[in-house]
């Protein structure tokens, strides 16, 4: 299984969380489970570290939250708002462009490639 560096995981957390929320409203535990499912267990977050990220995103008004009572417990649901959606578009374009640059650099015929 692929092991990602801490830095890469930290940098990708926000775009991943926003992308999951773009699919629909969700809560902390379910977000973690969906990420594990999509990445087939490769992205193994320290689960507790998601919650400060959600707090930060909410504070920056990229997502909003509401409380729903399920199984007798209060569950905090998050939803992506318009600011979050446009921020995600910006992030997608940044990651896409970075990905293209990497692809070009790593192309075998490219003289820049390091042995």
């Amino acid at each position, binding site marked *: 299984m692929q092991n990602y560096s801490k830095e890469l995981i930290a940098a990708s957390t926000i775009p991943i969380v926003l992308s999951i929320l773009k699919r629909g409203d969700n809560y902390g535990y379910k977000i973690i489970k969906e990420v594990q499912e999509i990445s087939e267990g490769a992205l193994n977050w320290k689960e507790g570290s998601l*919650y400060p990220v959600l707090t930060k995103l909410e504070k920056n008004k990229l997502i909003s939250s509401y409380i729903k009572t399920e199984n007798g417990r209060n569950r905090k649901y998050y939803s992506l708002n318009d600011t979050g959606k446009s921020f995600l578009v910006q992030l997608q374009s940044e990651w896409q462009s970075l990905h293209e640059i990497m692809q070009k650099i790593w192309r075998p015929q490219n003289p820049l490639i390091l042995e």
Partner: protein
Amino acid sequence: MAPTKPFDLRIEVDTYVNRLDNNLLLNSEESDELRDHFHCQVEELSELGLSEEEAFEVSKMRFGERQLIQTEFHKAKPMKMIYRYLMVGLLLLFSLELIEALIAYCSAFMFILIDQLHVPFQTASIIDLSIKGSLLVTLSFCVYFKLKQGTISKWLLWFIPVMSIVAQLTVPALFNFGMSYDSSVYFSIAGKAIMNSKIIMVISYLLSVGLFFVLWHRNGKSLRLSN
């Protein structure tokens, strides 16, 4: 042999979340969210055959290091700690003001003893020193026990600022009482300057009390309160 206490998931989760939030950074929604996380995970792991106790141990491991999570919450809420230090600082200022006022009242009592009741100066001094001494010892013990408990009572958060305002307004009057009123002093330039600075002092004091109550209202949970 003492019987072992049965495992109570709700208590264990509450204890763990409270320990995680020992800096009181989380609001009730966020604490509930963390509790929900553990309950969801324990339910899932229990379905796989683990006991509640084992499932909770696994959940804690997967959750990550407590200190790391606390640091991340600190980064997400940097102002929360600043507000708390500001509240504690203001409360300390009001407490000092109140202690100063109490000592001033004791001194006024000594003047009454000497001037009105004609108590000899030495006796009045001994009474004055004993009252001030016992006052300071009692207050030091109160502060020591409060610090040991790590909590502050709700009524004290009201009492200290309000009483310190009363002190601010009454102590100067206490010492002016009985003195001859010389209007020329008050109407001179120096007199006006003193009056203006006193007014500014009182206004800033009232503003700082106001700021304290606003901070308390907005960040009530950032102080450990007892009833």
